């Protein structure tokens, strides 16, 4: 079995947090389409996103800016945002 890339791991984790926190039924993290629009197709609202963002903030120890919410419209974009923040954090730590 090929090793997952880091972004794939993050995507799976974000999907798991979505499912757990928002009590989404009949879906697994593996079956969660990372490109599906969270607002238009799943009906997630700003409060839902805030809840997920707080849990992800804890897990990855990164800041998720409230102003960035509008960009986070699917699981892949959230994962890429997290990856970017983790990258910035490791650069800052190295300096």
């Amino acid at each position, binding site marked *: 079995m090929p090793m997952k890339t880091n972004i794939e791991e993050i995507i799976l984790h974000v999907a798991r947090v979505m499912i757990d926190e928002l009590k989404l039924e009949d879906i697994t993290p593996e079956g969660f389409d990372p490109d599906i629009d969270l607002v238009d197709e799943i009906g997630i609202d700003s*409060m*839902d996103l805030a*809840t997920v963002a707080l*849990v992800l903030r804890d897990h990855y120890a990164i800041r998720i800016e409230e102003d960035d*919410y509008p960009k986070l*419209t699917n699981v892949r974009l959230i994962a890429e945002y997290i990856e970017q923040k983790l990258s910035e954090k490791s650069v800052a730590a190295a300096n």
Partner: protein
Amino acid sequence: MMSRISGNQTGKETNSFRKEWKFSEILAERGVRERWEKVRKYFFLRESTYDMSNRCNIRCEGCYYYEGDKQFAAENKNPDSWRRLMQAEKARGITYVVLAGAEPSLAPDLCRICFKEFPLGSIATNGLKAIPADINFKIHISVWGNDDTSARVRSAKNMLIRQIENYRGDPRAVFVYTFTSNNIDQVHEVAAILAEHGCKLTFNVFSAPVGYRGDLRHTPETLGETRKAMMDLLTAYPGNVLFSPYNAVAHTHRKGLHDLYGCSYPRRNASTDIGLGRSFRQYRTDLNWDRAAACCVPDTDCDDCRHYAAGSAVVTARMFRHAGDPQTFKSWLDYVDTYLSVWVMDYHKGANLSDRMAAPPENEIF
């Protein structure tokens, strides 16, 4: 790390080392976790508002409805049109309706149609004409001072007792006392009467309509007096007053709600991004709406907006920024618990988690 203290009683901002809290740590306290689980069940609420009539049986100084051009919209009294509108609203994801201006009690059949399509909603009324019991929405009855003041600014005699006669013992009813700059002391008399009759009471703060030149507008001094009266009554009538210390802070701050939290209603949030800016509409009596004016209380001067209905959406939407420390998050939970008890049938307010005032995030306490 160096960061600002945002939750002290004095409002002084000081630099000090401060723990950076994780959300999971904030939720680790049992009472906080329980309250969080209690309120989050209602995160599905998505509101819009509807003017039910362009008539009113009284005319009050400073009335929001008779500002701007919404008062000139023709009344659509066709039941089928209203039914179709409600069904369309449901289809686009609205889960909560607010029936307002000018006086919904004058259009009970239309209110009933709305209730049949939506189990959750509320009606803003002056309380002088009873709304039929089968319309099981929360009913917000406006009170603008004692009866002498009501007679003067609303041209209605014996207003409070007539309102109480219509709604005594009615679980739908919440009396909403609007603090203006010149009725602050009268709230004690009004609250005592309401408590004596077992009525529930919450507070609003007069927010001037655009261009308002009257003397009801607040000053920093009257906002301070209003805050004190709110806190005194919260202590005096804990079983009757639906409020929290953080409600008092949010609605009597020198800054209005928009400056404190960033208003998310379409009128101030032109984007169609996730949240209220995307979903909220404010329908006039002709069943049209205007994105540029859509707001829970259109024609309010946004810089002076401290309206309780606005806060119910604007403050609650800012959960993320209140989740920085336990005290601020408890205050936010108290606010949400208050809001739900005022707006949702069969939701019962718990004891406030915090009995002291917290500063809004990134702001001083006053």
